[in-house]
């Protein structure tokens, strides 16, 4: 129960930060990237504020032997910069630039009760599942080929 309650409150704080900062507002997000037009540099301050606080907070957290409600820190261990990572990031940027929504900005925007975030959300889930299904089919083929 403590895990559920704390996760909800942390999500609430994160989502409030997203709303206050403007990351859930495609008009502001797209203007941040529109250097040649209606440039609005606000989002650089979002990134700056978030990075400084997270970097300090992580240092303090990692001094603890383990997280308060878990027995280990689940940190990604991969170090390799591969084609899949870079092509995925590049593709993500195209979608972000077309719409102005990234996943972290979109989910809190769902709570506004407007139709645009809901439309984007359905398409987002379809995109995630499309890659997962393609991965599953490929690994099944590989298994079949090796047996």
């Amino acid at each position, binding site marked *: 129960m403590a*895990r*559920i309650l*704390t*996760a909800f409150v942390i*999500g609430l*704080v*994160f*989502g409030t*930060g997203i*709303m*206050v*900062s403007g*990351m859930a507002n*495609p*008009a502001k997000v797209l*203007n941040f*990237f529109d*250097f040649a037009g209606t440039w*609005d540099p*606000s989002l650089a301050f979002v990134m700056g*504020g*978030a990075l400084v*606080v*997270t970097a300090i*907070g992580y240092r303090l957290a*990692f001094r*603890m032997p383990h*997280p308060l*409600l878990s027995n280990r820190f689940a*940190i990604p261990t991969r*170090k390799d*910069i591969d084609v899949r990572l*870079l092509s*995925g*990031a*590049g*593709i*993500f*940027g195209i*979608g*972000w*630039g*077309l*719409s*102005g*929504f*990234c*996943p972290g*900005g979109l989910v809190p925007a769902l709570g*506004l009760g407007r139709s*645009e975030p809901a439309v*984007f*959300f359905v*398409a*987002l*889930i379809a*995109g995630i*599942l499309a*890659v*997962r299904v393609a991965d599953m089919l490929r690994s099944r083929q590989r298994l079949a080929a090796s047996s």
Partner: protein
Amino acid sequence: METDFTPIAALAGGALIGLASAVLMAVHGRIAGVTGILGGLLPTMRERDWGWRAAFILGLIAAPVAMALVTGEMPQIGVPVSTAALVIGGFIVGVGVTLGSGCTSGHGVCGMSRLSGRSIAATLTFMATTALTVFVVRHVVGG
């Protein structure tokens, strides 16, 4: 459509994002990446720890409502793109963040703040293609 330069709100919002990310690590030992947390709830993953994931996502969705209860009005956003751009953009973002193992929150904030080489490379890449896409849409195609 012009938007106002809001450095104070941006900094304050960013600090809240950072605070929540740090506390999620201290309490749950988890990266505050919305792609990863949301992705773990979808049927093809079947993560056993869906409880905290669902609670975090519900907290995100509840944020604008909680703000409206405090301030008396819903936060405003502007969506200056077509429905087609939302549908195509949403699908492309879903494909991209799944292949790239993360988005602005996971790579851009959490990964960069622990100096992960993968996250720095991913963030530089998506910032570049986002800017390029906005330039093409607004000044080449739409110009």
